[in-house]
């Protein structure tokens, strides 16, 4: 198997389409679910963000020095693209704000147990991002803080609020479905 580094070089130097397709097929399966969860499960939005991430990645491939794996580098670009996308849509609020807001639980969900993916999608964007990165992707709070441009303490608070809200939604209880906006 051709190493990622060689493929990256071929794309950056020659605009090699075959090398790009190989990179795409190798790394998109990892990038796509991350982005899909970040944008709240909207497939069309996720595809737009994945496209934006790849365009940014290819345009900046000459800057890829291999200090991290290509997958890590690409996912970081994907996270930035997802955050920009949510910001443009006005769905990425002030992540430092500590005012509690109620999660908009759909009427059909009251008193019902929801699927975990659906619950994650229902969380406010900031909480959701921290939950996805910490509990699904395995990032540390320091890495999340660096990636999302927030304080470590904010990351911990967001995770606490996200888990609390997720538990409430999963068990179908209404009174705990609160989270800090983000």
């Amino acid at each position, binding site marked *: 198997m051709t190493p990622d580094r060689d493929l990256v070089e071929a794309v950056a130097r020659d605009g090699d389409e075959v090398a*790009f397709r190989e990179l*795409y097929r190798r790394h998109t399966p990892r990038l796509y679910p991350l982005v899909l969860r970040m944008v709240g499960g909207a497939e069309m939005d996720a595809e737009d963000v994945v496209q934006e991430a790849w365009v940014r990645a290819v345009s900046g491939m000459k800057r890829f020095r291999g200090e991290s794996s290509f997958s890590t580098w690409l996912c970081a670009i994907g996270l930035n693209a997802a955050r920009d996308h949510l910001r443009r849509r006005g769905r990425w609020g002030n992540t430092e704000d500590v005012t509690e807001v109620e999660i908009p639980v759909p009427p059909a969900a009251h008193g019902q147990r929801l699927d975990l993916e659906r619950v994650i999608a229902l969380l406010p964007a900031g909480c959701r991002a921290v939950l996805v990165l910490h509990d699904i992707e395995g990032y540390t709070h320091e890495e999340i803080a660096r990636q999302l441009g927030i304080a470590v303490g904010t990351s911990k608070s967001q995770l606490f609020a996200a888990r609390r809200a997720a538990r409430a939604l999963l068990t179908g209880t209404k009174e705990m479905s609160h989270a800090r906006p983000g």
Partner: protein
Amino acid sequence: MHDRDDELTAAERERFESLPREMMPSRLLEERIVSELHTRGYLGERQHVRRPAWRPSWNPFPIAAAAAGIALFASGLAVGQWMGARHTAETMLAMQRQDSANAAAAIQRTGSAYLSALGTLAQASTSSDPKEVARARMAAQNVLHEAANEMVRQAPDDPVSAYILQGLDQASKVKAASAPAPDKKKSLVWN
């Protein structure tokens, strides 16, 4: 901080771990991104998929030309249909979420997308500006080529798609040979 008393239980951890870490988006996305990267000039010459190894014993060009004519029209409709399908999927999703406002907006966008695609096609084909007609023809050929490429990928033994690709390649070779000063850079925008 809160994390001291908010650890996941074993069952919760298991639930998170059971979520898929890898998923492939629709096949069209790869083509869409490759096309976008070509348009922006980040990728070089377009690569063609490998043709079927066999060759027919008769001259396929007249059949290819006829098939290309039909397919050219069909590809125009397919573009509209693709655009419509994208919005239709959005509509279904919105309806599934019982979000009537989103559904209504998506239906409107679906209709607009169809009308826009057909309108653009019709305008371009009746234009008196030869450059515009040539551009439209080039765009349609590009769409056809991509569609045929995709067909060959999906069904490598399908002779019609292979004929279309062959026909288009021959036509572009003839055109390239007869052109007085071919442009080195060819840029097509497909929105």
